[in-house]
């Protein structure tokens, strides 16, 4: 790959990009292109892409916008197939920039190349150890791929996801979507074996109708946050429909029709992605809750109702098994309240009884930390059961300090753990929604 505009000046994009590519451990050849430098960050540089004929497939371009067309032309002549154009100063600036972007696109297409950007903050491909972006580090390997229209916010979110310990496969900052847009990228990620779940941060789409048709055929879960209110003109309102059908309402309808899980907050997109990438889909929308405290289970029960999930009606057998395990004054009906007990045995017996109950489709296991209990104990019970039953389990180990070992074990054993009961239930609702989409919407 070539890095055009690679630099020794730490204040430049061309520095950061090359640095990240090298630090990421990209295994192919890396060629810095800079007419002014013989060596860039220790690598031998070339003055022009022309020198690299036949040697590079991918070019990352970070030169001022007025030079981009000339560089792209050289790339085309030298056999480059893919471009990541980081340079800004195109359609996002209006007027002249718009014209320049049109010229850029036709040039790219004349050579049969494909382009991400311009105005992208880069791409990450974990499989190829390629970090051609401004994100400071590579994520852990995993099945979530992330498409973001906002550069800075999107990459901050990616950074945050890395912090959460989520495994990511591809990160793509789309920039102006001049050549490749959401439809191209979704179809690519659908074919990509290492992608299980797609997360999107969207502000608008270019080819809405095509997106709708394309996503109907994609069975991998897609979770999206769509921001940006409609920009209704100043035109006087003529019809009710005209005034009500703002772009936001239309997006919601379109997402529902093609099966995109729309979430309302940025934290929700990765919460949902975590559940979708680690849990099997539930057979239905009935939930059983186990908790060592009544408060947490009430919060979770309320959230279930808000999200259209129903509390499972437990069978007599299940309730008997639970009753024999928990204190006499505790609740053996759903939500199951162990009245403060959180030993391995109690959590194992109760959770297993719930998992075996045919009326239960998924489990929300809650644990509220106290100074008298050990957060690792109930986590051990879930870790043990997780691999034995094909039902989704979301968890919420509340309490912060003291819960770390338990949380770590949950993560390691494939239980999706969340900070609050609401977030756990919302993630569960995303699983239910995707199952419904697969049944009703996907073709």
């Amino acid at each position: 790959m070539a890095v055009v505009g690679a630099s020794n000046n730490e204040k430049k994009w061309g520095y950061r990009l090359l640095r990240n590519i090298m630090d990421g451990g990209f295994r192919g050849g890396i060629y810095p292109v800079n007419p002014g430098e013989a060596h860039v960050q220790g690598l031998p540089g070339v003055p022009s892409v022309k020198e690299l004929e036949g040697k590079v497939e991918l070019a990352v371009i970070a030169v001022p916008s007025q030079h981009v067309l000339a560089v792209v032309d050289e790339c085309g002549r030298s056999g480059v197939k893919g471009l990541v154009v980081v340079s800004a100063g195109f359609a996002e600036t209006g007027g002249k920039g718009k014209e320049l972007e049109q010229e850029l696109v036709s040039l790219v297409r004349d050579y049969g190349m494909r382009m991400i950007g311009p105005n992208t903050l880069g791409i990450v491909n974990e499989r190829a150890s390629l970090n051609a972006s401004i994100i400071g580090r590579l994520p852990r390997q995993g099945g979530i791929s992330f498409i973001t229209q906002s550069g800075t916010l999107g990459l901050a979110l990616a950074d945050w996801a890395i912090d959460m310990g989520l495994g990511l496969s591809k990160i793509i900052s789309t920039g102006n979507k001049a050549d490749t847009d959401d439809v191209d990228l979704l179809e690519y990620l659908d074919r990509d074996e290492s992608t299980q779940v797609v997360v999107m941060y969207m502000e608008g789409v270019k080819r809405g109708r095509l997106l709708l048709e394309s996503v109907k055929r994609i069975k991998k879960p897609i979770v999206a946050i769509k921001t940006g209110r409609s920009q209704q003109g100043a035109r006087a309102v003529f019809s009710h429909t005209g005034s009500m059908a703002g772009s936001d309402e239309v997006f919601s309808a379109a997402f529902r029709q093609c099966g995109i899980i729309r979430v309302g907050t940025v934290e929700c997109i990765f919460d949902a992605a975590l559940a979708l990438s680690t849990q099997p889909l539930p057979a239905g929308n009935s939930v059983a809750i186990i908790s060592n405290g009544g408060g947490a289970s009430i919060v979770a029960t309320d959230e279930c109702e808000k999200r259209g999930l129903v509390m499972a009606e437990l069978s007599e057998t299940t309730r008997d098994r639970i009753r024999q395990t928990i204190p006499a004054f505790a609740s053996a009906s759903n939500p199951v309240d162990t009245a403060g007990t959180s030993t391995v045995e109690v959590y194992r017996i109760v959770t297993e009884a719930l998992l075996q109950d045919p009326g239960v489709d998924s489990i929300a296991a809650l644990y509220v930390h106290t100074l008298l209990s050990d957060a690792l104990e109930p986590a051990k019970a879930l870790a043990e059961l997780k691999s034995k039953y094909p039902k989704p389990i979301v968890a919420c180990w509340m309490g912060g300090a003291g819960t770390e070992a338990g949380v770590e074990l949950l993560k390691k054993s494939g239980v999706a753990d969340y900070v609050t009961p609401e977030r756990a239930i919302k993630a569960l609702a995303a699983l239910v929604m995707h199952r419904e989409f697969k049944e009703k919407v996907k073709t």
Partner: protein
Amino acid sequence: MRRPDDTELFGMLGEYGIPLVPYEFARTRVEAVAAAKRVGYPCAMKISSKDIPHKTDAGGVVLGIASDGDAGKAFDSIMANARNFAKGASLDGVVVQKMPGKGIETIIGIKKDPQFGHVLMFGLGGIFVEVYKDIAFRVAPVSVREALDMVREIKGYRILAGLRRQVPYDIDAVVQVLMAASTLVEERGDIAEMDINPLIVHESGATAVDARALFE
């Protein structure tokens, strides 16, 4: 953008099988009385002018006309009000409609969205749409199942389904009108906006009473 006149608009709706309440156009007082007689009493009379999309605001609607005499008076007052309301507006005359049977008011709408193309809207009429915005949208074309989902999705569905009544309203009839609207926009790409408002849903059947539209 252009506004079709009532003749064109009602004609188009009829062509696509959207059930309209029986109507006739009349240009003069004599025609109006004759039209009223033919559609039958009680009937309604409304101003017909593409310059007046909101007919009630212009004093251009008289309901419950019961006799020839009432019909003549209604014509006079509607034309006078309309002339006062919109100076220089081109007035096509009036539309005389049979009063629709009992039912619940709903609205079916169409809008062309710049990113997704034509979108259908459904909701209960009056304050339900204007204040509570209790409405459902789908990108057209829709399947029968999607149309039914739209009807079930609104909070007011329980009212349609017969809340506190013995008999539900005819939900299949609503679905049929939604399907007709879906076919309509597939063939008429030039519709920018349209309201079928109200669409009265009866215990059996549904009737469109009025509509307004904007064509590209």
